[in-house]
């Protein structure tokens, strides 16, 4: 798989159709994001996690947004898994990336990883390498819905009170690109003190993710307190789907019912 991807990137770099490719490299025994600009460097290319979700999956779209803001006229390639592609579609919709300036290089995740990530679409629409595997459904949300209301309350309050307000969940999320963040607004979240304001902190983030979250799970992986954040955002996404038939990141030309006036769009 990696050789096919190397070839693809090599091709893009050699005919100068992209200025660089945002991907991962192995350096000094660690995997980190890297912008490849020379074919010679491709020896270092890494695809990151393959068996289980670990610490080598990165929000490459977030790196791409930072670069695209600096070099708005240049075209960049980006390595994408299924989750990253959902992210790209969402970022196109939210005008954070220009689809004409992005060349996605997609690959499918192996089944083992798809299961470990509980991924709802473990492949991009048009993969360069790998075989498409089945989507995985998870039932953690239904488990919580099945509890009675007071149990649900204590479940979430126990979870939220573990928060150390590190902002890791926000910082790792490619869909969190705002220059000003409500979670830093002192009228909502008090500054310089712990415990964090609950449930305001976590519910504010959940509301803002309603039509954005692409269910990549990076936030939950990053959370040092193991708060099941993804389940919270799954719930907001589920409401969006039930009310408006909308799922963030599945269609390239998607429109969000939250960013328009008038009747809900056909999705």
């Amino acid at each position, binding site marked *: 798989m990696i050789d096919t991807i190397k070839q693809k990137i090599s091709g893009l770099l050699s005919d100068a159709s992209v200025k660089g490719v945002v991907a991962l490299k192995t350096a000094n025994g660690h995997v980190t994001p890297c912008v490849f600009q020379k074919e010679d460097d491709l020896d270092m290319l890494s695809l990151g996690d393959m068996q289980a979700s670990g610490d080598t999956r990165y929000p490459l779209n977030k790196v791409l947004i930072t670069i695209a803001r600096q070099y708005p006229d240049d075209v960049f390639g980006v390595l994408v898994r299924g989750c990253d592609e959902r992210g790209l579609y969402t970022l196109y919709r939210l005008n954070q990336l220009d689809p004409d300036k992005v060349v996605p290089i997609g690959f499918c995740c192996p089944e083992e990883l798809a299961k470990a990530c509980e991924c709802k679409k473990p492949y991009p629409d048009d993969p360069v390498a790998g075989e498409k595997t089945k989507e995985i459904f998870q039932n953690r949300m239904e488990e919580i*819905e099945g509890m009675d209301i007071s149990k*649900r309350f*204590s479940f979430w309050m126990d979870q939220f009170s573990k928060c150390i307000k590190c902002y890791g969940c926000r910082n790792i999320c490619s869909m969190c690109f705002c220059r000003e963040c409500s979670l830093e607004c002192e009228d909502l979240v008090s500054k310089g003190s712990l415990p964090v304001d609950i*449930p305001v902190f976590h519910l504010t983030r959940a509301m803002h993710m309603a039509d954005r979250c692409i269910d990549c799970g990076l936030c939950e992986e990053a959370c040092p307190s193991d708060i099941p954040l993804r389940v919270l955002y799954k719930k907001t996404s589920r409401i969006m789907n039930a009310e408006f038939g909308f799922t963030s990141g599945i269609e390239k030309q998607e429109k969000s019912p939250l960013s328009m006036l008038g009747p809900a769009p056909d999705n």
Partner: protein
Amino acid sequence: MLDFCGIEKERMRARWVSSAEAPEFVEEINQFINVLKKLGPSPLSMN
């Protein structure tokens, strides 16, 4: 979302009332007060 987190969803209400409709506003608030009285203190206040 409130319900999903174990907070009665009746505790939140959003209604559109024009500034010219004072009686409607009073009626709405009174009704809401009754609902809240029945629900008792919020679980959040006991945390």
